[in-house]
């Protein structure tokens, strides 16, 4: 059980990263160290909160305070005022452009008010470089269930019945795609994840990869199981260095920790996953139940 009574979430997406969120993390930690609070307050670098225009963003939990345009030198004020004295730092709060009201909880901001996050549920909530936090949020449960309780046909039926569709312009039904792929006979099949994101001004793939990379790996492994592909490829652009770095970390952690996944070798921008799902291996997993 954690003995921390407060979490400071610092945005580590590309936008905030570029405006020195790393330095904010360092300064917050230094400040906590100096005040002897390292055991009570945890600083976490997360994925993107989605509000890059006002970055870098620091969120204080559990009171859900949302600080915008934080500078590294504000770290001291946040620790001294908010963490120690429990007073919010008003000048760092978000000001509603219409009502001019200072808003402290992001739930009440116009930008976030109507959002229901599904794909990005973990983005800005967990540390993307720590598989433990993903597992704590039910991560790899779906893969575990699929591998130990379902046949590939059942998985495909489940996906079909869910009505899931591709998120590209075509909106192709995912279940149908998997069914066609599974019926196709081949010596070797691959799951290919196109993380290139060519459309101008679209960054949701990058946000998922940077903020919740394990969810991509888990989904690829589920797909691999249901269509009979033992390998996966992620094609990702060199312009997304942070996403590549976090994916590599995720793959390494998953390989060390989750036995069904995932071997990996990297060549420039193409990451190759090996799901290690040879039949014997799968049966070995099943037998243990």
């Amino acid at each position, binding site marked *: *059980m*954690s*003995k*921390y*009574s*407060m*979490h400071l*979430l610092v945005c580590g997406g590309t936008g905030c990263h570029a405006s020195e969120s790393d330095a904010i993390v360092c300064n917050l930690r230094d400040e906590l160290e100096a005040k002897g609070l390292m055991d009570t307050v945890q600083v976490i670098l997360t994925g993107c909160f989605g509000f890059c225009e006002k970055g870098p963003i620091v969120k204080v*939990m*559990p*009171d*859900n305070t949302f600080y915008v345009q934080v500078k590294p030198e504000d770290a001291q004020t946040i620790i001294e005022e908010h963490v*120690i*004295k*429990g*007073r919010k730092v008003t000048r760092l709060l978000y000001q509603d452009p219409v009502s001019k*009201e200072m808003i402290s909880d992001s739930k009440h901001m116009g930008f976030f008010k109507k959002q229901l996050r599904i794909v990005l549920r973990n983005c800005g*909530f*967990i540390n993307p470089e720590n598989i*433990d*936090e993903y*597992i*704590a*949020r*039910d*991560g*790899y*449960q779906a893969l*575990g*269930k699929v*591998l*130990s*309780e379902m046949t590939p046909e059942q998985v495909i039926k489940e996906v079909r019945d869910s009505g899931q569709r591709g998120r590209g312009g075509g909106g192709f039904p995912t279940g149908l795609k998997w069914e066609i792929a599974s019926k196709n006979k081949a010596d070797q099949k691959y799951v290919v994840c196109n993380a290139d994101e060519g459309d101008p001004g679209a960054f949701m793939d990058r946000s998922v990869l940077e903020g919740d990379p394990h969810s991509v790996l888990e989904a690829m492994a589920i797909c691999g199981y249901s269509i009979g592909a033992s390998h996966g490829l992620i094609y990702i652009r060199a312009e997304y260095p942070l996403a590549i770095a976090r994916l590599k970390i995720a793959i390494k*952690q998953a390989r*060390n*920790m*989750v*036995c069904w996944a995932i071997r990996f070798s990297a060549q420039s921008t193409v990451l190759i996953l090996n799901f290690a799902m040879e039949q014997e291996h799968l049966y070995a*997993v099943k037998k*243990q*139940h």
Partner: protein
Amino acid sequence: MSKITSLADLKKKRDELKGGLDIRVKAIDPDSVVQVKVAMATCGIASGAKTVMEFFLEQLERRNIAAIVTQTGCMGYCYAEPTIEVKLPGQDPVVYGFVDLKRADQIIEKYIKTGELVDGIIPVNYQTIDFKE
């Protein structure tokens, strides 16, 4: 890092790790859980507010009560330190003074669990000023 080799392992691991994210999960909807604020200014600390805060953190978890425990500055009742403010879901906050560990225990057992008020309440003597027109 230990390997996970079965679904049962994975579930066990998840349940172990869940607590680490507790603070963040509760922060999504803080009004749905019990909120305890411990006044932690010089006066509070000198009268033992730190011990009281640790007590609440530890005991609420041990007694399986979903709660957020935070510290705040001086509430202005220095004569009655340690003071705490308890807000049950959907109710107005109640401020308690002279909270030692015995009273803290009573507050958890009676007020937080059953809603029954206990001794030491500091009556509301302020009004919140609303700046909106």
